[in-house]
C-alpha cells in the first residue's frame, strides 16, 4: 500500500475512534408530530466546545416539522445544550417515521449518529414484544428434555415470551409454565400445543388455551367424533374439489372453535410444509383454509417452509384479505431457536393482549439469518417499518444483551430442574443474578419511550 493511502486510512480510522463515543441516546421512540427532548450521552468526550459541533436533523420522510419538505439533501441544524457528558436537544418529530440526529464537527465528520422513531398515538400506546410460539421438547419429538429449557433458550436469543407446543401434548407447556412461575424472571411463557385431530393431518397451534386438545381427543373421543360429524353435515357439499376429504375441514373447524372457547388463539401451522416432496395437507384443502380464514392467524414464517407461505400470504393481501400472522422456528432443538420469531405491538406481554394484537394485525413475522446477522420482516407495512427500525437500532443496544445474560441464568435453573445439572452453587448464583436483574428489561420501555 502506498504511504499516502495508508496515512489517509489511518486518519479516517483515528477520527472515527476519537469521535465515535456516543454511548447511549434516549428516548428512541417518540410521539409523532410532537416535541421531544433527546439526550445523547458521551463517554470521555470533550464536550466543552459547542462551537465546533453541529447537530443536524432529518428524517426518512423528508418532511420538516412545519410540514414542508426538506431541501434536497439539506438537513436542519437544531440547537442543543451541553449538560455534563450529555448533549440535549429538543425538537418536533413530524409524521410516523425514522429520524436521524447527526452530531458533526467543524470538519463535517460524524461524531454521533442517533436514530429514533416517531409513532402515532395508537402505536405509541403499544410496546413491542418478541416471542416464539412453536417449539418442541422431549414431551413430543424434540431433543431437549423440557419445555422450560426451550423457553430459557428463547430468552437467551432475545425474546420476551415463548410458548412450548408439543404434538398433541399440553404437558410440555404445563411443565414450562409451572417451572417458570418459580423463577425470578420477566420472561413469560404460556400454555400451548401443536394439535392434529384424529382423522385430520392439519397441524394447528393452540396457543394460550386453558385445556389440552390432545387430552380431549384421548378422553372424549366420542364427543370429538360426534362434533366433527355434526360440523361435516353442515358444510356445503361442494366445499372442496371431488376426491378431497372434507373431514379435514370439519375437524379443523371444531378444533379451532374449541381452542377459542378455551381462551386460546388458533393458528394454521406451516401451510407449505412438504415432507416427502408433497404438501402435508393437499393444496385444495390448504388453499381453502387460507382463503376462508376460520382460524385466528397463519404461521407465515416457519423454520424451513416459509418461502411459499410468504408468497401466498402476500397474494391473499393483494386480494384485499386481512391476514393475522405469526413467525416461529418450529424448533425441535434448542440450538435452532434464533431463526424466527413474531414481533407484536401490544399493551402488555399478557397473553390476552398479545393474542388480541395478533388478530388486530399488529404483528409481523421475522426471520433472522445468523450468518449475516440480518432480519427479514413480513407483515403490513406500518408495523413492518417500525419493526425494522427496532431490529436495526433498538434491540441490540440493551434488550438483547440483557436477555442473553438472563437466558444463561434461566438455562442453569431449567437444566437443574430437569435433572441435567447438579450444581447448587451455580443455581444459587443464577437465582441471585436473576433476582437482581428482574425488572430491567421492562424498564427499558420507561427509558427509551418518550414519557
Amino acid at each position, binding site marked *: 500500500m502506498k504511504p499516502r493511502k495508508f496515512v489517509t486510512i489511518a486518519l479516517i480510522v483515528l477520527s472515527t475512534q476519537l469521535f465515535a463515543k456516543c454511548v447511549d441516546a434516549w428516548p428512541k421512540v417518540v410521539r409523532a408530530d410532537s416535541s421531544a427532548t433527546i439526550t445523547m450521552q458521551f463517554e470521555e468526550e470533550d464536550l466543552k466546545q459547542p462551537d465546533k459541533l453541529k447537530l443536524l436533523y432529518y428524517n426518512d420522510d423528508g418532511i420538516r416539522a412545519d410540514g414542508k419538505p426538506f431541501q434536497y439533501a439539506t438537513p436542519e441544524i437544531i440547537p442543543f445544550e451541553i449538560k455534563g457528558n450529555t448533549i440535549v436537544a429538543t425538537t418536533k418529530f413530524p409524521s410516523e417515521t425514522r429520524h436521524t440526529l447527526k452530531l458533526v464537527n467543524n470538519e463535517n465528520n460524524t461524531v454521533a449518529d442517533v436514530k429514533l422513531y416517531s409513532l402515532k398515538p395508537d402505536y405509541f400506546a403499544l410496546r413491542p414484544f418478541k416471542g416464539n410460539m412453536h417449539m418442541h421438547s422431549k414431551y413430543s419429538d424434540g431433543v431437549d428434555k423440557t419445555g422450560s429449557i426451550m423457553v430459557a433458550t428463547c430468552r437467551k436469543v432475545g425474546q420476551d415470551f415463548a410458548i412450548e407446543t408439543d404434538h398433541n401434548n399440553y404437558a410440555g407447556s404445563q411443565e414450562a409454565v409451572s417451572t417458570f412461575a418459580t423463577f425470578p424472571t420477566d420472561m413469560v411463557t404460556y400454555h400451548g400445543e401443536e394439535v392434529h385431530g384424529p382423522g385430520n393431518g392439519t397441524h394447528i397451534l393452540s396457543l394460550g388455551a386453558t385445556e389440552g386438545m390432545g387430552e380431549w381427543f384421548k378422553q372424549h373421543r366420542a364427543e370429538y367424533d360426534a362434533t366433527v360429524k355434526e360440523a361435516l353435515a353442515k358444510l356445503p357439499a361442494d366445499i372442496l374439489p371431488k376426491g378431497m376429504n372434507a373431514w379435514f375441514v370439519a375437524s379443523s373447524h371444531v378444533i379451532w372453535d374449541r381452542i377459542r372457547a378455551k381462551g386460546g388463539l388458533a393458528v394454521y401451522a406451516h401451510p407449505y410444509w412438504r415432507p416427502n416432496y408433497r404438501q402435508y395437507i393437499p393444496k385444495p384443502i390448504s388453499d381453502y383454509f387460507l382463503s376462508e380464514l376460520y382460524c385466528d392467524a397463519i404461521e407465515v414464517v416457519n423454520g424451513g417452509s416459509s418461502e411459499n407461505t410468504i*408468497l401466498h400470504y402476500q397474494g391473499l393481501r393483494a386480494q384485499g384479505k386481512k391476514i393475522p400472522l405469526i413467525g416461529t422456528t418450529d424448533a425441535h432443538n434448542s440450538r435452532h431457536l434464533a431463526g424466527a420469531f413474531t414481533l407484536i405491538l401490544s399493551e402488555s406481554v399478557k397473553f390476552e393482549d398479545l393474542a388480541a394484537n395478533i388478530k388486530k394485525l399488529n404483528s409481523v413475522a421475522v426471520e433472522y439469518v445468523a450468518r449475516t446477522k440480518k432480519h427479514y420482516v413480513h407483515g403490513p407495512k406500518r408495523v413492518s417499518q417500525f419493526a425494522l427500525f427496532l431490529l436495526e437500532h433498538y434491540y441490540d443496544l440493551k434488550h438483547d444483551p440483557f436477555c442473553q445474560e438472563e437466558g444463561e441464568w434461566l438455562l442453569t435453573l431449567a437444566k437443574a430442574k430437569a435433572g441435567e445439572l447438579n450444581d447448587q452453587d451455580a443455581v444459587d448464583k443464577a437465582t441471585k443474578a436473576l433476582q437482581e436483574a428482574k425488572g430491567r428489561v421492562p424498564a427499558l420501555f420507561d427509558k427509551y419511550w418518550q414519557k
Partner: protein
Amino acid sequence: MKYISLAFTIFVLATQVSFSKLVDSWPLVVKQDSMVQFTFVLEDEPMLQTPEKLTLQYVQADSVRESGKAFGGAFNKIEFQIEGNKLITKPIKIIGETIHTLRLVSPDAQGKFRNPKVHGIHFVYSLADDLFQLRPYRGSIHTVLNFPTEAEQLQPHKLIAQLRHSGYDFACIADNDLDKAKNAIAGFPFKTDFTLIPAEEVFIPGKSAKLLAINPNTSVGKWIAGNPNELLKAIENEANSLKIDSKEFTEQVATTHAIIKKIKQENALAILVHPNHGQDDFPYLPRPAIDAILNARQYDALQVAGGPKVDLDFTDYFELCASGPRVPAVGGPGFVPQADLARSITVVLAKSNSASDIMSAIKSGHVAAVFQPPATYRRIAADFRLGHYFAFLLRYYFPKLNGTYRSEADAFNKILDANDEQAKQLLPTLQNHVNATYDKYFAVTQ
C-alpha cells in the same frame, strides 16, 4: 462437536443417497394435464443391470392424484424401461400447476422403502397453457457502467462480459447518459444471444423521482435539459390533474408524471427506481410525494430489487399490491460491487429474448423482481403463481445455462485481452444455447 455433527450428517446422507449417478434428466417444464415421458441419463450405475430392483416413485407437490384424491404419504410407482444408460418412463399424466417429483430408488438393506437408497431425483414443473407458451429469461433492468470502488472499474465491454458471466440473458445498460449506454452496446464487438438494451436513468434532484427509460427513441435526459419551457408546460398540465394539498409535493409528483409521459412518448418503458433510495438516509423525495407517485401507478414497473433499502422496497411493493392493482416488479443490481452483480435480478416470461418481447413481458406483468440475499433463500416480488414457478426455474432450470454463459464470458475476455484465436473459434459454437436448452427441458406441447 461441530465436526462430529458434520461427519454424522455426511454419513447419514451417504446412507440415504448413493453418490449421484443421475447426470441429466428431462423435461423439466411440461404443460399441465398432458401425458409426459421422462428420460433419465445415468452414468456408471450398476443398478441399471438389475432394473427389477429399481423403483421409480412419483408424487405431486400439491398432494393431488389424477383421480383427485390426496397422495397421503404414498408415492405412485411409475413404469420404465432401460435403454443403455438411459431410463425412459412410460408416459404419465401430469396434472395441476405445480412441482412434481420423480425419485429413482432401491429398497434398503431390509428390503423396505421406508428409508430407500436414492439413485436420483428429478423435479418437474407443470404449467397451464398461457404461461407454458412463454419462455423464461433472467436479466437486469438496471445496470450502471461503474462500480463503487476504483479497483473494480471495468471498461464497458468487460462489464458486459461480467454481466454474461453472472448469468444474464438480457441487460439494460442504464447510465445517466443514454449515449454512453448506446455506445457501450454498439461498441460491443461480438454477435451473441445476449440481449443488450440501452436505457437511461432520469432524475431532477429534489424535483422528481428517479426513473429509468428503457430503450427510448431519443434521450429523455437531454429533453429535460434542453427544453425547460416544454417541461414546465408538461408539469403544469400534470399538476392540474392532481389533487394534493402541498404545493411542493404537487410539483414533485407532476414533474415525475411529466417525465413518465415523455418516456412513454419515446416508446420506452418507464420504471420507477427503488422508492426508498436516498443519500445518507436522506430521502431523494419526501415520502408523501413518493407515496402519491407509487399509488398513481403511472409507471410501467417498479424496481423492487436492487436498491440500498431492499427490505423497505419489498414492503412498499407488497403494500401497493394490497391496496390496489398489482404493479409489475423488476430488479437489477444498480451501483453495487462486482460480487453482487447477480443478487438483484428480473425474471420474465416472454415470447423471445428480443428487447421488444422482454419489454412487452414486463408491461404485461409476466415478470418478477428477485433478490438473493446472502445465506438464505430468494425473495420474490410477484404473485404466487409466477413466484412459485420462478423459484423452481431459479433452482433447477436457469443454472443449466450458467456453464455456457461463463464460457462465453471467458471467450469475450480472452478475445478482448489477447485476440485469442481459440476463443474466437469457440464463441459461435456457444450461440443458440438458450433456445437449445429450452427445447430440451421444456416438453413438446401435446
